[in-house]
């Protein structure tokens, strides 16, 4: 099993940390993993992305141009990465702030209104966990218990009281993600 994915959105949206939680979760499941962030000027200019590869085998290139899955969280990222999904691949996006919706017919497209759901749960910071829940619903490549373990590993202990809230956000994401 190899899952090559890109997560892209605004800096500060928790794009990199979503990738990090996924990476830690994969380690908890004894998988190989690479997490390659954008760290360049785009970080300062507002967009951020991270390539995460999870595999049962040794990972070759940590940098790719084609992905099994793209999780897209703003318009710039949609413009940049819609075409990078492999035919038959998966695109998940949050409709918030999207003016041009994805148009490809050869991939599976799901939407998740995570910004809206996070608002309903009165915590904008769990937005990324709602998105992650949506992804794991469509591609359950990591067991839920390992995601919780990964969450514990990636969060500093002072935030561990927030784990139940993050767990709820993951579950919420699994409920609200829907195919287009």
């Amino acid at each position: 099993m190899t899952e090559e994915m890109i997560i892209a959105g605004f800096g500060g949206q928790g794009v990199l940390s979503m990738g990090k939680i996924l990476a830690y979760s994969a380690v908890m499941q004894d998988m190989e993993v690479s997490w390659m962030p954008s760290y360049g000027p785009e970080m300062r200019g507002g967009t951020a992305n991270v390539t995460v590869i999870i595999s049962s085998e040794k990972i070759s290139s940590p940098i790719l141009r084609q992905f099994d899955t793209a999780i897209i969280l703003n318009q710039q990222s949609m413009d940049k990465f819609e075409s990078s999904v492999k035919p038959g691949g998966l695109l998940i996006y949050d409709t918030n702030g999207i003016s041009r919706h994805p148009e490809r017919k050869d991939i599976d497209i799901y939407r998740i209104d995570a910004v809206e759901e996070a608002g309903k749960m009165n915590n904008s910071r769990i937005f990324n966990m709602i998105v992650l829940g949506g992804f794991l619903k469509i591609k359950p490549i990591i067991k839920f218990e390992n995601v919780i373990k990964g969450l514990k590993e990636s969060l500093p202990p002072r935030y561990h009281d927030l784990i139940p809230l993050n767990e709820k956000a993951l579950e919420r994401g699994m409920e609200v993600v829907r195919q287009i």
Partner: protein
Amino acid sequence: MTQEKELRLMKGNEAVAEAAIRAGADGYFGYPITPQSEILEYLMAAKPYETTGMVVLQAESEVAAINMVYGGAGCGKKVMTTSSSPGISLKQEGISYIAGAELPCLIVNVVRGGPGLGTIQPAQSDYFQAVKGGGHGDYHLIVLAPASVQEMADFVGLGFDLAFKYRNPVMILSDGAIGQMMEKVWLGPYKERSKDVPDWATTGKTPDRERNIITSLHLDSFSEERFNQKLIKKYEEIKSKEVRFEEFNCEDADYVLVAYGTSARVCQKSVQMARAEGLKVGLLRPVTLFPFPSKRISELSTRAKMILSVEMSSGQMVEDVLLAVNGKIPVYHYGRMGGIVTAPDEVVDFLKSKIGG
């Protein structure tokens, strides 16, 4: 302190820092620069001076940092510095002096694109500087090229061992991608800092021996030439004993890719993609850039049809590949610049264009 190997998920930069503490390093002297500042940040947060006694110091400049390394190395201590391309340029005078004084130390370059201030994104355009000198004078560094976060950690210990074995500065030539990337890494147990004082170290004269003098100054031309010849002898020994490389699918390869570091990871994928299309492609990954695996490349060029050197530069390592192949078969270079990491499919496309032509 644990003696077991420990599994962590870390950035390459963090792995260097943690591995330095575990290798029993005595001192780190650095100055921040993207994309390697996490090394200094990690060490400052880890406070090894409270546990192992390892000194961690942010110097006032790169020039100060390398000269602190010079001083520490002269006392026989396991010392290191890290930087990225523009900072490594500033350190070149000190590196030349350290090589000229035959002192052991570890220098890590997490390469970014250049020349000048360039970009903060990954590149491999410091190959010439690392392998062919960099500073003035006839000298070589031992240059290790990690291709994973695991090797970023492993090469710290290996680098110190080689530095002390040959009394020669060792460079880990990495790049922004490996520095910033997170992967699984198995960390070795914490080693005690060594209490042994090498017999050449300047730690104060004792009555039972002559003074130890460490210098790179030889005003007498014959003395300088004798010293140059001594260095050449050392480099020849290093070339005969320390060449390291790794091969993927080279046994039956018609086309051999040669790539190190991040490009070698990219090329592993290119090999898989090309093989899926029925092309017999292999990869030779130099692990040491000095000494370079010239002999092996020469052997491969007696039965392969073409060699493609892949590097994120305008073509630096390709010159050493050309020397090794010595005209036997065609050699090409491919690589992106400016901080763009070459994509696996681009390498395959370029290779196919050359096979066709």
